[in-house]
């Protein structure tokens, strides 16, 4: 257990999964034959709709006729079941064991220290791609010249790579406008510790254009005054809290036009030809246009963080009132023709929301808060058990739709009266 909390997020459900793994996908086995389930919405401990969320409000709608199951039946020579769903997925140039990656959790204290390392180790063991947040280096250092290794980027990189199975996973290192100063990408690209990932095609650089928690703003963290003095000439330090001990550190969001985004992506490809290039967008109203520009300029993946997303610390008005919900982002992206590899995040933790996102055009979903909570619940195996449960749910749902790969999911697999096709 840790003191990490996530008010408003299904924290207890995530912790439950991190403790018990696949069993959490079902009602308690002791209730079998004794409790009549189904009238609760949602049943206790189970994923269920948040009335205000269009993605949650969608229902997954299996068909009666299942031609793809027939194809799989012919292939296998027996009736396929949910265990025959192949979840291995190409994500932004990497191969992932699941259509899932671990989202960026930056320098924020919640993701620092042992928790950041536990998360990295377990993500590596699972073969899930992992994003390392933009300001880890400027705030916590790189770790080569004696900074506290647990918080620094290098510590996370090593913890991840040590557990990584051959051929799976990969690390995407974020950089935003402010940390261009720290040259995070250049540093990683020329570092011996990153070489095994680079040489096996498992290193990506993610250009962070924005994030779901605070669209239109740059990164924000709360620092104690001593740390602030150290960073003072690089970041905007603002004493908004009215006491001397803590200050707000606010980065600028960076200025983008279509041409600036296009050329930045091209320059990344030019400068780092052996790395994959990812672009992360906030849920802006022009998200579909921005995704198109990034993909056409050669990004291997475009990540869209819905307004529900983000572990990042944000002014209250932003999560409450700013940015498009993920469902609307997906609708706009689908209407415009989604980028070839669309990754989405925002309140992901269970199979239903993930399957709906995949059906609406995403290639994979990112775990942010859920991954942190699961690793906090059990630093050894919490995320691993949690991912086992998620994988089982994905298999159950995808097979129920008569399909056996995430890529086969389509718009017709989900329905709601308020979300016309």
């Amino acid at each position, binding site marked *: 257990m840790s003191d990490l909390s996530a008010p408003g997020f299904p924290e207890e459900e995530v912790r439950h999964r991190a403790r018990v793994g696949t069993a959490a996908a079902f009602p308690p086995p002791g209730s079998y034959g004794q409790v009549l389930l189904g009238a609760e919405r949602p049943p206790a401990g189970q994923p269920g709709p948040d009335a205000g969320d269009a993605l949650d409000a969608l229902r997954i709608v299996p068909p009666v006729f299942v031609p793809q199951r027939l194809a799989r039946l012919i292939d296998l020579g027996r009736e396929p079941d949910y265990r025959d769903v192949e979840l291995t997925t190409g994500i932004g140039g990497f191969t992932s064991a699941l259509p899932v990656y671990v989202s960026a959790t930056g320098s924020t204290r919640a993701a620092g220290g042992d928790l950041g390392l536990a998360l990295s180790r377990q993500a590596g063991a699972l073969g899930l791609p992992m994003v390392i947040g933009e300001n880890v280096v400027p705030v916590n250092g790189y770790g080569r010249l004696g900074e506290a290794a647990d918080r620094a980027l290098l510590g996370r990189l090593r913890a991840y790579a040590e557990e990584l199975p051959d051929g799976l996973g990969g690390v995407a290192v974020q950089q935003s406008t402010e940390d261009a100063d720290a040259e995070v990408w*250049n540093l990683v690209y*020329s570092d011996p510790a990153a070489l095994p990932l680079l040489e096996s095609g498992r290193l990506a650089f993610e250009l962070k254009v924005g994030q779901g928690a605070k669209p239109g703003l740059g990164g924000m963290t709360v620092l104690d005054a001593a740390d602030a003095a150290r960073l003072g000439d690089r970041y905007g330090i603002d004493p908004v809290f009215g006491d001397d001990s803590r200050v707000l550190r606010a980065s600028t969001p*960076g*200025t983008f*036009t279509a041409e600036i985004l296009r050329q930045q992506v*091209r320059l990344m490809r030019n400068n780092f*030809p052996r790395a994959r290039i990812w672009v992360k967008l906030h849920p802006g109203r022009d998200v579909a246009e921005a995704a198109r520009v990034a993909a056409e300029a*050669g990004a291997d993946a475009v990540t869209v963080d819905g307004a529900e997303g983000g572990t990042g610390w944000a002014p209250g008005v932003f999560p409450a009132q700013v940015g498009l919900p993920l469902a609307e982002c997906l609708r706009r992206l689908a209407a415009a023709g989604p980028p070839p590899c669309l990754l989405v995040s925002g309140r992901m933790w269970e199979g239903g929301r993930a399957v709906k996102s995949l059906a609406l055009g995403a290639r994979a979903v990112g775990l942010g808060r859920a991954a942190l909570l699961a690793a906090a619940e059990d630093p050894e195996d919490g995320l691993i058990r949690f991912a086992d449960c998620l994988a089982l749910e994905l298999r159950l749902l995808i097979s129920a739709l008569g399909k056996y790969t995430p890529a086969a999911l389509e718009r017709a697999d989900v329905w709601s009266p308020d979300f016309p096709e």
Partner: protein
Amino acid sequence: MTTDGPTPATGAATLPEPGRHLTSPTTRAALRIQHQLLFAAREFLRGRGFTELLPPIIGPVTDPGSRGSKQVDIDFYGHRYKLMTSAILYKQASLLAFDKIFCIAPNVRLEPLETAGTNRHLAEFHQLDVEVAGATRDDVVQLVEELVAHIVGSAVRELLKEFAELGRDTDAFAELLKGSFGRMRHAEAVAELQGLGHPQSPDAELDWAGEALLSARRDRPFFVTDYPKGSRGFYDRENPEDPGLLRNFDLIAAEGFGELCSGSQRTNDYAEIITRMRETGENPQKYRWYLDLVREGVPASAGFGIGVERLTRYVAGLDAVWQASAFPKLAGVVSP
């Protein structure tokens, strides 16, 4: 002589012991050729009215436009300073003092580890940097042509013994010494490479293998001009008649030796520089001194930098560029 082959596995690169390197006849001959090239360059440029300046080694900001390499941070009394990756910002600023300047500038770039085996990258190297107020790209292309023909001619005339010792046949420079180098646009280079089955991206700089491939097919140095935006730093001027293309060039040696020199007509308009900084992922805030200067006005200009060790390698016909340095530094290799 060897040309750039496939990159060997990192870690394969080694350097000889310093004592053995410095006393080797090859090193001595190569450094004498380098000395002569620099002597002749100074002679040529002074004759054309250039002033030699001593370039700074550290500053709050340096050239970001070096492909994939990392800058070296310096703790300057609590401020983060950089070792120069190139003198470009200072070259433009120096035109406030003189219209035509040059310098022989040390540069440090922590290149990606894979470059240790390319035979053409050093982590520490020198550039013969030239900047001319009021010049166009084509003016400086012509200047490079005349300069290179002059200095190579001078070395060939003065150092017969050294060339013989190195086994370098100076007939290789017959076309070069006539002073007319080839010219091709970046788009033509891409088309030629793709025609040869080399997967060259049309949006990027010519990759090292591609450059060597073009170089090996030619008997004299040649210019590649009009690189696309997204492949160069913010200071290369975009062509207003052909948006998306830059008024810049590289000079590429014959015989597979690859790039010797990069240059361009410069952006000197404040708003354009800020916009181009964003297009190249830079944070304008850290370029404060430079932007303040540009806002007040720096002359329009064009210029270039010739890699001194690379030029020496080409002229001396050396296998690797580190042989053209008395104290070579390769990516990831610890050496004095």
